[in-house]
């Protein structure tokens, strides 16, 4: 979904600028620069920003962002405040999200101070099917029925998911 991706681009560009500003201030005060931040999008947002997947699946999303963050606390504070401005909330439970073995991460935005990656769609679906099947029942059915995710069924079963649950 292009709208979601464009909005994310605006958000992370703003974060990039703010980190730049923080670094300039710190430099003037003789402090240490903050390190480059890394964001890995998980969950529904990782599917929504993927054009191919968005064309296959019917997606709905609440206003929370699931993501693994590797950043200084001051940068996280800035990110939370930018997200709020855009009507989004960072889900603090994101660290509990299970990432299935074999997951790949592709770069979405490679900015000077922030790099944003996204989990591959099939792995996002496997994670949902195994750990949150109730909330994602219809989504997983649609993904399986589409036949577009070649190893989805095998990976769900291999990781302890119950295919019968979706039948």
């Amino acid at each position, binding site marked *: 979904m292009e709208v979601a991706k464009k909005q994310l681009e605006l958000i992370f560009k703003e974060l990039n600028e703010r980190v730049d500003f923080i670094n300039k201030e710190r430099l003037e005060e003789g402090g240490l620069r903050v390190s480059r931040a890394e964001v890995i999008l998980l969950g529904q947002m990782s599917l929504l920003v993927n054009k191919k997947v968005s064309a296959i699946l019917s997606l*709905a999303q609440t206003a929370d962002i699931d993501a693994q963050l590797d950043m200084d606390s001051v940068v996280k504070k800035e990110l939370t405040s930018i997200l709020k401005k855009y009507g989004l909330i960072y889900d603090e439970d994101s660290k509990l999200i299970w990432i299935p073995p074999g997951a790949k991460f592709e770069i979405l935005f490679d900015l000077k101070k922030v790099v944003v990656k996204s989990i591959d769609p099939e792995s996002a679906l496997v994670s949902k099917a195994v750990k949150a099947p109730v*909330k994602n029942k*219809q989504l997983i059915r649609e993904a*399986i029925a589409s036949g577009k995710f070649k190893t989805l069924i095998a990976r769900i079963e291999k990781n302890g998911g119950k295919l019968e649950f979706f039948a």
Partner: protein
Amino acid sequence: MNRADVLKRIAEKAKKDKKFRQDPRYLQAMGFLVAKGFLRTNQAIPLLPNQRLRLTDAIWAGKNVEPRILEVLPAAVLRLPNHFDLNQFEHPDLFAAIEALREKKKGQPLWGIPLKKYKVWVELILPDKRMKPLNEKKVVKTFRLSPKSIEVLKKRSKEWGCSKTDALEKILLEG
């Protein structure tokens, strides 16, 4: 059921899900919740910001088509009560959940969703700036002020180019 049967049933149910996504109950609930900013979607759904929803229909859509509808529904009903037909006797669990949100009390899970998860949407900033999060909504209070205080308020509001309420708030908060 063998594997082939399971896959066949999944395909059948996926077809049924697709049909359900054309159901007016789903389209109305999604059209409203997306228009108000509680949900986002990649589906071409007509936005219905002025829609009044039957809770029975919205709950059906949440249980049968898109479970995320259920997650935001309590906060949506609390913040936009005029758009729903909430009835304590028809939906006692939802009513109790909304009361818990309003009173900031401990509440029970609703439709299997813990309070922590559906509480978040009460404070969400929505695109429609007229709808303030619950913690920012103004509360009516009546005070009997002396004529001298009223004069000061009038003077300050004129000076600062704001309403008397804003002037009073400024004095209270900024000293």
